[in-house]
């Protein structure tokens, strides 16, 4: 464990750095010797790159970064129509030369030089949302999709200190897949709860979340489980995601090895309960990194089901680029092991604009007003950081 003021030192040095949640605390990666900006042309080369087999790997023998939503669509052959965009890079990975361990409680003294406008603007109003919602419900009736997530975006003009935001965010919501990236011209802060890929050797697992319940004094873990079990809509949404993730793992795993390790359990976090399943498998010997990424991404639980037809429906509807939202952040080690999350509950700061994207699902028994508000509640936790 390192001294607390190290974080302050790195932050004030203006060096780019990344922080990623671990089981016990956080890892900090910095002193990047390489920065790879991904596009449709170089992503295959990046993923297929073979590293020399070494007996002993250093803890910095890895590339860490993110794949944006569009890049992941294109990788599986789904094209997007022209959308309004910030021209933010489609994916970036870094090769760190320094890795440090940080404690779970991040100590950071902000000099509070955040310049923010408090009012966030939403990109689609409730009327328009309802229109899209009803259109998608018809598509569910005709069988083109079974579940689809509508994305709304909140934006404002601001200049923030990302580390200050990240430290405050982890205090209010210590999510298991939280991360931040601070680079010279952008930053990302996320309290993602969802792990998409954990791969060690030939073992691979995914841990989809479908179902969230706000914690109150009246609701303990057992009551939360009863709530989810008795809620038919939540149960059906969750079932669908479990079968879809089993499917995605089956693409790359040996027949008979894909197992539902934890079926519909409740995980408790500071402010909320999540309805979670854990699915694992043993990879086929010839499954390459690119096969794994293509099979699993973009993560199904934030798209809907079935993946391809639902992506096409979504993409034809959305007028603005999702950027990082519902992409994946994580690392690929030189020995082939990897860990990736799904980028949700995130703030992207780029060109002095802060952008928060949220989505919630439409299934046959969803209600437009309820889902629109659900989106706002999800965004509010992040918007409140700007106060």
């Amino acid at each position, binding site marked *: 464990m390192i001294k607390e003021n190290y974080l302050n030192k790195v932050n004030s040095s203006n060096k780019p750095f990344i922080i990623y949640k671990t089981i016990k605390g956080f890892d900090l990666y910095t002193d990047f010797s390489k920065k790879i900006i991904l596009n449709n042309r170089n992503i295959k080369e990046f993923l297929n790159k073979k590293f020399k087999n070494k007996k002993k790997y250093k803890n910095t023998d890895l590339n860490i970064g993110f794949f944006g939503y569009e890049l992941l669509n294109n990788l599986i052959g789904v094209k997007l129509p022209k959308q309004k965009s910030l021209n933010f890079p489609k994916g970036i990975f870094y090769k760190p030369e320094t890795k440090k361990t940080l404690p779970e409680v991040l100590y950071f003294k902000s000099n509070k030089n955040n310049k923010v406008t408090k009012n966030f603007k939403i990109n689609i109003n409730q009327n328009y949302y309802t229109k899209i919602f009803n259109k998608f419900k018809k598509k569910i009736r005709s069988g083109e999709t079974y579940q689809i997530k509508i994305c709304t975006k909140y934006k404002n003009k601001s200049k923030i200190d990302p580390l200050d935001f990240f430290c405050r965010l982890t205090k209010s919501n210590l999510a298991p897949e939280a991360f931040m990236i601070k680079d010279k011209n952008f930053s990302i802060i996320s309290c993602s709860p969802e792990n998409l890929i954990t791969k060690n050797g030939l073992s691979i697992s995914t841990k989809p979340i479908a179902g969230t319940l706000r914690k109150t004094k009246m609701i303990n873990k057992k009551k939360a489980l009863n709530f989810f079990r008795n809620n038919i809509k939540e149960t059906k949404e969750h079932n669908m995601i479990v079968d879809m993730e089993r499917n995605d793992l089956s693409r790359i795993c040996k*027949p008979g090895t894909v197992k539902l390790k934890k079926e519909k359990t409740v995980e408790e976090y500071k402010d909320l309960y999540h309805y979670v399943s854990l699915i694992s498998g043993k990879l086929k010997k010839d499954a390459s990194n690119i096969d794994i990424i293509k099979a699993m991404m973009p993560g199904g639980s934030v798209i809907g089901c079935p993946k391809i037809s639902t992506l096409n429906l979504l993409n034809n509807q959305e007028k603005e680029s999702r950027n990082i939202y519902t992409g994946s952040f994580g690392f690929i080690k030189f020995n082939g092991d990897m860990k990736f999350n799904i980028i949700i509950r995130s703030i992207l700061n780029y060109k002095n604009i802060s952008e928060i994207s949220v989505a919630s699902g439409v299934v046959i028994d969803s209600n437009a007003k309820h889902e629109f508000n659900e989106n706002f509640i999800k965004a509010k936790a992040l918007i409140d950081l700007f106060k």
Partner: protein
Amino acid sequence: MIYVIDHKDSFTHNVVHQFSLFDKVEWDDFSKINKKKLNNASTIVFSPGPGSPKDYPLSSKIYKQLKGKKRIIGICLGFQQILFSEGAQIIEQNKIYHGFQSKVIVNKSSKIFNEGQKFKVGRYHSLKLKEPFTAENFDITMRCAISGAAMSFENNVDKIYGFQFHPESFLTVNGKILIKKILSA
């Protein structure tokens, strides 16, 4: 060899995985069917998928070509695809079942399952078979315990079988046994 024709579904690989327990399985997208594989296969499986059978004329064509020559199995959309190719109408239902576990009951016309036998199965369908429906040698052999909607058919003369539900879903109890039965019938 079993050849799975994929209708771009997010459950096809669960089907592939399940059938792989019994034989070698190959799969391809419905629009990129490999003739050699089609010829070599002893069993053809039409996968689940979004939309309705009228969206997949290529699959209907394959069905008509191979009927009576190979064992043919349809799951969910595949079930509808076979019936549609036999002249059935596939219509929207009032109550939609997506990610739903429900009970189905075997009726007396089944040759491979016992009458009255109940199964807990996973369902993902917006559409259903419009009844009455008749086609030579086709029997509806399972129905939803509540709505009565057709859930399975058998054609033991031409060796054609279909399930409206998903035997490969984790919501289906003993789905493996159902597949084993229709592969050995």
